[in-house]
C-alpha cells in the first residue's frame, strides 16, 4: 500500500461500513452492525497510528484527491494535508471513536435502532476524518457540515421524544448561525486570496496583513480582522462558545456514547482545530485574537458556574465540556495554538472517559440520571468508580494527570499574553479552576460516596435516557429501592480502562514534544514579537521547569493547585459533611440561583426574540405582503378593476334603439366640430 492509498483508506473504511450497515441493516444479522463498523474504524485507527508514526519523520503530505468543481479561474478540490497536526487528530478521533463503538455494543444492545446507531457513528467518523485531513477550506466546510448532520441525526436518535427532536433542530440551527459567518469568511478568503487551498492562502497571507476593505460607507476595516472573526463565528457555533453555546447542553438528549464521541471529544473541538490550523491568518490580527480570547474566557468561567447547579449527571459533564472548550479558546486567543491542541487531545480522552463513565452509572441506575438519587456507587461499580475518579482528577488539573499539563499551560499562556482582554482571561481561567474542581467533585461525591439515596427516594424519571425507546420496559425508570446497581459487562469496562490510561499519562509524555519541541514546527505559526506568550512559556520551561516532572513539582505551591484543592475541599464539605449548607445557600442567594437556573436567559431570549420573531415576521410578510398587497390589491385587484370597467362598458350596451341613436347623433356632432376646425 502506498501512503496515498492509506490516506484514502482511513476515512473510506468507516464510510464503507456505515453505508453497508445503513443500507442493509434489515438483511444483515444484528451482530454484523458492530462487527463491520468496528472492523472499519479499528483498521482506520491502526492506519492512523501508522500515519502519525510516519509523519513524525517525513515531510507533510499535501495533494489533491480529485477536482470537485472548476469555474472560471477557480478550482475547488478534495484533497489531503497530512502533517503532525492532522495525524494527531486522526489518531485521537479514531481512537475515541473505536472506544465508543465498543462501548455502544453494551449501551445500545436493547435498542431497536442498534444498526442505525452504528451506521451513524461510523458516518460521523468518516466526516470528522475528512474535516481534519482536509487541505482546503471547502472540504473543511464539507466535513464541518457533515459532522453537524450526524450530530443532528444522533441527538434526535430517539425521534419520538419531544425533547430530543427539539434539541436536534436547535443544534442544527444554532450551528447554521455559526456557519453563516464561516461561509462568509471562506468567501472573503477566496475573493482576496484567490484560492481556498491552505498552502496557497497561508503563503500570501503575510502580504494581506495591511489590506483594508470597505464594508459600510467609507469606514476602513482590516481584511484579516473581518475574515478571522467571521471564521471564528463558525468555530463559535461548532465549539459551542457563548452566545452560540445554547445547543450543547440540550444535545445531551442523544444517547450517551455520542455525547462522549461527538459532544465532548471530537466534533465540538473542530472549531479549536480550525483556528489552530488557520494560525497563519489569526496571527495577523490581534483584534481578532482579542475577540477570540474574550469569548473563550466568558465561556470558560460562566459555563462552569452552570455546572454547579445541575442535577442531571450528563448535563454537568456537558457544562464542564463547554467550560473546557472555553479554556481551549483562551489558549487560541493567547496565540498558544499548540497548547489549545494539547488540551484538545487530553480533554478528548478524559472527557470521553467521564461521559462513558456517566453512561455506565446511568445503566447501573437503570436510566435514572439524577445525581440526587445516587450515592455509594463505588461499592457496586468499582471499575466505573476508579476510572471516573481518574477522569475527574485529570479534569481538575491534578499534578501528573494529563489535564494538569494542558490546563496549567493554558493558565500560564493567559498570564503571559499581552493582548487586550488577557487580564480578564487570566482571571477567568484561574477562577474557573476552582469552579471546575467544585462541580466535578460535587458530582463525584454525590454519585460514588455517601448514602445510597435511591433506597429512599421516590423517582420522578425526567431524564431517563431510554424512556421512549423502551416503552414496554417500565422498570427502566430508575432503580428500585431494593435493587443493587450492577457494573455493566466488559464491552463497557474495557473502553473505560483504555481511556483512563491516556487520561492519566499522556500529558506527562506529550507536553515536551508538543509544546516545546518540534512537533508542530512549520505547522503552527506564531508571531512571537506581537504575541509573546508562547515564547515566554518556552523560556520558562527551559529555565525553570526543565521537564514534565519538574512542572508538576513546581506547581505544588502554585495558585491553580491551591484553587483546585479548595474546590475539592469545599465540595467535600458541602456534600459529604454538611449537606444542609448548599440548600441554605440556594435560598439565601435565590436571585443568583434563579439566574443560573435560567442559564443566564439565553434560551428564553432566543426563543422569544429569534424563533418567535422570525415566525411573527414570516406571518406578517405572508398575510400582509403576499395575501393582502400582492394578491389582494395587485393581482386580484387588477382582475376586479377589469371586472368593474367591463361593468361600466356593459351599461352602454342597453339594447334600446333610441340610446344608440342618441349616441350616434352626439358622435356625428362631435366629429363635425372636430374636423371642421382642422
Amino acid at each position, binding site marked *: 500500500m502506498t501512503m496515498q492509498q492509506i490516506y484514502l483508506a482511513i476515512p473510506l473504511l468507516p464510510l464503507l461500513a456505515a453505508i453497508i450497515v445503513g443500507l442493509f441493516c434489515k438483511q444483515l444479522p444484528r451482530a454484523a452492525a458492530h462487527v463491520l463498523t468496528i472492523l472499519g474504524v479499528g483498521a482506520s485507527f491502526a492506519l492512523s497510528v501508522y500515519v502519525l508514526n510516519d509523519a513524525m519523520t517525513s515531510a507533510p503530505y499535501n495533494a489533491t484527491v480529485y477536482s470537485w468543481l472548476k469555474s472560471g479561474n477557480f478550482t475547488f478540490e478534495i484533497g489531503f494535508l497530512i502533517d503532525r497536526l492532522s495525524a494527531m487528530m486522526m489518531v485521537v478521533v479514531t481512537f475515541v471513536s473505536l472506544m465508543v463503538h465498543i462501548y455502544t455494543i453494551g449501551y445500545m444492545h436493547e435498542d431497536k435502532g442498534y444498526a442505525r446507531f452504528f451506521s451513524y457513528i461510523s458516518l460521523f467518523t468518516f466526516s470528522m476524518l475528512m474535516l481534519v485531513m482536509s487541505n482546503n477550506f*471547502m472540504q473543511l466546510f464539507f466535513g*464541518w457540515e457533515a459532522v453537524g448532520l450526524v450530530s443532528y441525526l444522533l441527538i434526535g436518535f430517539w425521534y419520538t421524544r419531544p425533547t430530543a*427532536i427539539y434539541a436536534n433542530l436547535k443544534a442544527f440551527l444554532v450551528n447554521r448561525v455559526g456557519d453563516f459567518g464561516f461561509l*462568509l469568511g471562506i468567501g*472573503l478568503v477566496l475573493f482576496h486570496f484567490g484560492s481556498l487551498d491552505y498552502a496557497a492562502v497561508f503563503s500570501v497571507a503575510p502580504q494581506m496583513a495591511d489590506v483594508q476593505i470597505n464594508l459600510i460607507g467609507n469606514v476602513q476595516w482590516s481584511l484579516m480582522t473581518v475574515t478571522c472573526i467571521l471564521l471564528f463565528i463558525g468555530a463559535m457555533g461548532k465549539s459551542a462558545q457563548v452566545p452560540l453555546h445554547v445547543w450543547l447542553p440540550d444535545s445531551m438528549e442523544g444517547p450517551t456514547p455520542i455525547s462522549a464521541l461527538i459532544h465532548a471529544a471530537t466534533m465540538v473541538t473542530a472549531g479549536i482545530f480550525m483556528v489552530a490550523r488557520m494560525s497563519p491568518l489569526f496571527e495577523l490580527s490581534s483584534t481578532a485574537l482579542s475577540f477570540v480570547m474574550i469569548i473563550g474566557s466568558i465561556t470558560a468561567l460562566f459555563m462552569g458556574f452552570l455546572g454547579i447547579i445541575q442535577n442531571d449527571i450528563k448535563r454537568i459533564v456537558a457544562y464542564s465540556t463547554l467550560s473546557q472548550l472555553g479554556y481551549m479558546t483562551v489558549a487560541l486567543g493567547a496565540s498558544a495554538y499548540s497548547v489549545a491542541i494539547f488540551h484538545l487531545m487530553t480533554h478528548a480522552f478524559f472527557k470521553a472517559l467521564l461521559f462513558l463513565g456517566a453512561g455506565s452509572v446511568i445503566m447501573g441506575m437503570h436510566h435514572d440520571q439524577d445525581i440526587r438519587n445516587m450515592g455509594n456507587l463505588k461499592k457496586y461499580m468499582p471499575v466505573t468508580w476508579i476510572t471516573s475518579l481518574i477522569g475527574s482528577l485529570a479534569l481538575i488539573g491534578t499534578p501528573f494527570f494529563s489535564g494538569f499539563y494542558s490546563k496549567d499551560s493554558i493558565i500560564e499562556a493567559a498570564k503571559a499574553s499581552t493582548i487586550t482582554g488577557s487580564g480578564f482571561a487570566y482571571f477567568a481561567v484561574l477562577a474557573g479552576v476552582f469552579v471546575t474542581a467544585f462541580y466535578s467533585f460535587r458530582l463525584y461525591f454525590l454519585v460514588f460516596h455517601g448514602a445510597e439515596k435511591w433506597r429512599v427516594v421516590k423517582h420522578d424519571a425526567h431524564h431517563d435516557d431510554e424512556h421512549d425507546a423502551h416503552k414496554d420496559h417500565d422498570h427502566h425508570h430508575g432503580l428500585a429501592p431494593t435493587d443493587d446497581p450492577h457494573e455493566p459487562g466488559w464491552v463497557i469496562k474495557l473502553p473505560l480502562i483504555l481511556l483512563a490510561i491516556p487520561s492519566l499519562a499522556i500529558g506527562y509524555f506529550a507536553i515536551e514534544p508538543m509544546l516545546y519541541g518540534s512537533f508542530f514546527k512549520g505547522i503552527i505559526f506564531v508571531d512571537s514579537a506581537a504575541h509573546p506568550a508562547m515564547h515566554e512559556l518556552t523560556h520558562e520551561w527551559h529555565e525553570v521547569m526543565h521537564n514534565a516532572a519538574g512542572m508538576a513539582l513546581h506547581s505544588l505551591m502554585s495558585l491553580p493547585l491551591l484553587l483546585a484543592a479548595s474546590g475539592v475541599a469545599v465540595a467535600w464539605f458541602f456534600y459529604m459533611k454538611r449537606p444542609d449548607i448548599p440548600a441554605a445557600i440556594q435560598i439565601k442567594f435565590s436571585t443568583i440561583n434563579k439566574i443560573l437556573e435560567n442559564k443566564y436567559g439565553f434560551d428564553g431570549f432566543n426563543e422569544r426574540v429569534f424563533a418567535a420573531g422570525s415566525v411573527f415576521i414570516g406571518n406578517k410578510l405572508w398575510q400582509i405582503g403576499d395575501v393582502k398587497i*400582492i394578491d389582494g390589491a395587485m393581482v386580484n385587484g387588477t382582475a376586479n378593476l377589469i371586472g368593474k370597467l367591463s361593468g361600466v362598458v356593459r351599461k352602454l350596451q342597453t339594447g334600446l334603439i333610441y340610446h344608440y341613436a342618441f349616441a350616434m347623433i352626439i358622435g356625428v356632432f362631435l366629429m363635425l366640430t372636430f374636423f371642421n376646425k382642422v
Partner: protein
Amino acid sequence: MLNYFSSDYFFSHILSYSIWVPVLAGIAVLFTSNDNKPDTTRWVALIGGLAAFLVTIPLYTHFNFADGGFQFQEGFNWIPAFHINYHLGADGIAIPLIMLTSFTTVIVIISAWQVIEKRVAQYMASFLIMSGLMIGVFSALDAILYYVFWEAMLIPMFLVIGIWGGPNRVYATIKFFLYTLLGSLLMLVAFIYLYMNTNSFEIVDFYNYQMPLNVQILIFLAFFAAFAVKIPMWPVHTWLPDAHVEAPTGGSVVLAAIALKLGGYSFLRFAMPIAPDAAHYLSGFMITLSLIAIVYIALVALVQKDMKKLIAYSSISHMGFVTLGFFIFNNLGLEGAIVQMVSHGFISAAMFLCVGVLYDRVHSREIKSYGGVANTMPTFAAFAVLFAMANSGLPGTSGFVGEFMVILGAIQENFWYAFLASFTLIFGAAYTLWMVKRVFYGEIANAKVAALKDLCQREFLILAILAVMVLALGIYPQPLTDMTNATVTQLLSHLMQSKLPVGLPSGL
C-alpha cells in the same frame, strides 16, 4: 430519399428527436386511451418516456466541451415570408436542462403509475407532449419557434392542473394562465420590434443588433415581464404556491423541476445577451429583487401550514439564487445559478414526490395532519430527511453546490449581497427541518399515521434514483460545470461588450 432511421440522420437531428419523440409518444398514448386497461397505457407511456430520455443522451456523449457556442444545429425555412426558421441548437446551458426535462418526465410517468386512475392516457400524454415542448423551448434558436413552444407548453400544464387538480383548481389555473400570458405578450412585442429592425427572427441576429440604452431597457423589461413571472421572482410569484397546491403531484414536479427553469434559461438566452447594457444598468434592481426573494420568501415559507405551499415558497427562495447568480456577472455566479437550476430540478421533484407519497395515503397536505411518520414509514423518512437536507443546502448534496458558488460569486461583487444571501443557511434549514420535525418525528400523531404503509417498490425506485442524482451532483459536480464552462465564459465576454451604437450618446 432520406433514411430517417440511419444513424447519420439521427446524429444530425438529435434535438428534433428530443423534441418530437416524446410528442409522438404522447400522441401514441392517446390512442391507447382506455381506462379499463390502464396498464397498457402506462407501459406505452413509460416506453415512450424512456425512449425520449435515451435520445437526449447523445447530447452529452457527443458534446464538444471546448465549444461555447450552439451545437447540434439543424433547421430549415419554416415560413420564408416572415423569415421564420425551424432552427434548433443547444449550448452548454441548454443541454443540462434538456436532459433534466427528459429525465423528469420518466420520473413523473413512474410516479403516476397507480396514482392516476382516471383518464390515464390523457394524463400521461400531457406530460410526454409537454416534455417535448419544453425541450423545444430550450433548443429553439428562432424567436418565433421559441415563442410557439413557450406558449404551447402552457396548454398541457393548464390541462394537468385543471383536470387532475385539487378543489380550487379553476382559480389556480386562471391565475397561472393570466399571469404568464401577460408577460409573454410583452415578450412577443419585443420580438416583433427586434424583427422590424433586424429583418430576422434568428436569436443570433438579435445578439448582434446594437441599440441605445433606453431601447435596451424597454426590451429588457418586456423580457423581464415574461421571465420574472415564470421563474418566479418576487413580487410576481403568487401564482406559484396556488398552482402547486392545486396541481397533482406530477404537475407540481414538472412545474418546479422544469417550468421554472424556462424563465431562468430565457434570461440567459434573451434578456441578458440581447440587452446587455440594460442588464448591467438594471442589475442593482434585479439583485434587490433576488435578495428579497431569498430572505422574504424564506420567512414566508417558515410559517406555511400546507406542505406543498411550503415547498413552493422554498422554490421561489431558491430561484432567488438563480437570478442573483445571473446579475453579479461573474463565472462563479452564473455557473452557480445554472447548477442551482439543475439541482433544484432534482430536489424539488423529490420533495413534491415525497408530499405525493403522503398525500396518496392520507389525502392531506396539512402539516398538522401528520406527526411521527418515521415510526410507520422508516425508509420513507430516511429519504425525506436526505432531501430535506439537500433542500437546506447541506454539502455533499446538490443543494449545496449552487448556493455555495453563488454566495462566493456574490461576495466578489459586494459583501452585503453575500451576507443577505447567506441567510438561506439559517432560514432554509429552519423551514425545511421544522417541517421534517413536525411531520416525521415525534410520537404517532393519529390513527391515519398509525395505519401508514412504507414505500412500495415503485415509490422506492423513483426516490432512490433522485437520491442518487442529488448525491452524485453534490459529491462530484464537475461534469456539469465542465459542460457549462465554455458557454458561460463566452456569454460573459459577450455581456461585457457594450452593444450601444457607436457614436451615439449612451444616456437615456
